[in-house]
């Protein structure tokens, strides 16, 4: 009985993973080719066609400036997904190294790195993002930096605790005895062993980063208009929800689908690789 349930859950997990992976890849491809396939210029205003519902000409209607919502959602995917993928990747790169160094060397190095990342971690990601974006001034770059800093301590913690486990393995002692340097041991022996859990975490944090980027640009702290991002489309749409509900509704649906897809991949990978991972 229990076997049957776990087998079903496993296949279910794989289906979820496959669906999530397909949607995520499709979104990334769409974002890359967006400039060539948008049916209309996403910045082109026309007051004659403002606030229309979906039609053959405008698949998802128009916003209150008469801009084509479908084209804007596609163009917005470029901004939202590039921030959503680049920022956690930067955070992962920096965080993994800091975490490995802390976990490998221990002592005061560990204390300094852990204390500072714990301090950052005590702030909710959105609040930290708002604080940093407020300090840097609203722009595309500051959204990337804000999100990267907000996610950085999560990777430090994960890679530090994973490194501490690996460090106790005999092959590390063997490498030290063989005279290998610390950096080389971390790169050759520690990193490959903690890589799996870090990839799961990265996928899940990409989902969070897309949501964070949307929240920041909704607050006016991310990519600046007229360039469309999903978050600032909702922000724009708020001013005329009665006349033109389409931009806000479609941009929000796009955010939800993207976040859902990356979450599905991450969840399924986590179930398959290691149910114990705590992100």
């Amino acid at each position, binding site marked *: 009985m229990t076997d049957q349930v776990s087998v079903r859950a496993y296949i279910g997990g794989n289906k979820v993973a496959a669906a999530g992976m397909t949607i995520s890849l499709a979104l990334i491809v769409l974002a890359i080719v967006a400039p060539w396939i948008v049916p209309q210029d996403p910045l082109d205003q026309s007051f004659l066609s403002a606030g229309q519902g979906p039609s053959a000409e405008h698949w998802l209607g128009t916003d209150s400036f008469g801009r084509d919502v479908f084209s804007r959602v596609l163009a917005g995917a470029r901004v939202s997904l590039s921030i959503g993928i680049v920022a956690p990747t930067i955070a992962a790169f920096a965080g993994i190294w800091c975490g490995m160094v802390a976990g490998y060397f221990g002592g005061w190095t560990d204390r300094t790195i852990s204390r500072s990342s714990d301090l950052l971690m005590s*702030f909710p990601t*959105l609040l930290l993002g708002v604080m940093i974006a407020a*300090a840097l001034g609203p722009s595309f770059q500051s959204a990337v930096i804000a999100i990267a800093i907000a996610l950085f301590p999560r990777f430090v913690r994960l890679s530090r605790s994973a490194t501490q486990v690996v460090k106790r393995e005999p092959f590390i002692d063997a490498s030290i005895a063989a005279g290998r340097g610390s950096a080389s041991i971390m790169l050759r022996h520690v990193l490959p062993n903690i890589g799996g859990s870090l990839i799961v975490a990265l996928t899940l944090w990409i989902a969070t980063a897309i949501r964070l980027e*949307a929240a920041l640009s909704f607050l006016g702290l991310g990519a600046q208009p007229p360039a469309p991002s999903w978050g600032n489309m*909702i922000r724009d749409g708020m001013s005329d929800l009665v006349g033109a509900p389409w931009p806000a509704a479609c941009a929000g649906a796009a955010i939800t689908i993207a976040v859902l897809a990356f979450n599905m991949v991450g969840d399924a990978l986590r179930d398959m690789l290691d149910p114990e991972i705590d992100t």
Partner: protein
Amino acid sequence: MIAYIARRLLEVVPTVLLVLTLVFLALRVLPGDPAVAALGEFATPAAIETFRHKLGLDQPMWRQYLAFLSQAVMGDFGQSMVNGTPINALLARSLPYTMELAAAALLFGMVVGVPLGVWTATKRDGAADGIARIFALLGFSLPDFYLGVLLLLAFSLHLDWFPMLGGGETFWDRMHHLVLPAITLGLVMAAFIMRLTRSSMLEVLRRDYVRTARGKGVAERWVIFKHALRNALIPVTTGMGIYLLTTLSGTITVELVFSRPGLGQLLIGGISARDYTMVQAGLVVFAFFVVVVNLLTDLLCAAIDPRITLR
């Protein structure tokens, strides 16, 4: 225990100092002169000089820093750079709106999330599992402000059941304004709390004392609520601090959706108006909440599980 409390309280001091310093520096290293931002591009040099003098911006950096520190510690944030209103008055007016939203959302999250978690942990068939999975995935994927926009469209614009804008004045009016924002944030919280309750319940239900209770012939309902839930709720309770902070930061976007005159609106308004003193005050207040809530959570955890104090 007393030693632990003292140590934990002492740790707060460097944290607060560091946060205040970062807030101060962040706003000073920014390109752009706040005086020019407040008075406009075409202000005369004399007017800018007067403005800088009035706000102490012509003082050396270390004096500004000391003045800022002593004011922040005393809880006096000066006046708005843009319109000269005392910031403390603005904070006093907007704080209640943020507090009532965070409290209502957290309450909603607990009331919905805990029973759902228990139900999906005990009824481990397809339907309950599916509901748990979908609810959790949606809770983590649907941005709270988008949910707010959808609720606003449906229940304020089309059905006209709830007011669209503002925070309300009299008690019932405020409650009426609170419903949609609280549900918006509360549903997301409910998903978090459900997932935590569920995994904690599943963990506890495997324990020996639950098997013993069942073996003794204790009724299943009694086993779940008396033996399992009480223990399963410990991580849920200690996780409250994280929920509270997540909810608090969630109020920033939700306030903007529903145009509630809260703390988040002040902060975001300050950022877009380049009102440096306002931004400073908003950031300090939010950071203050983070530090206090973390402190209280740690003390609560120590009270529930005294082993923590020995670390």
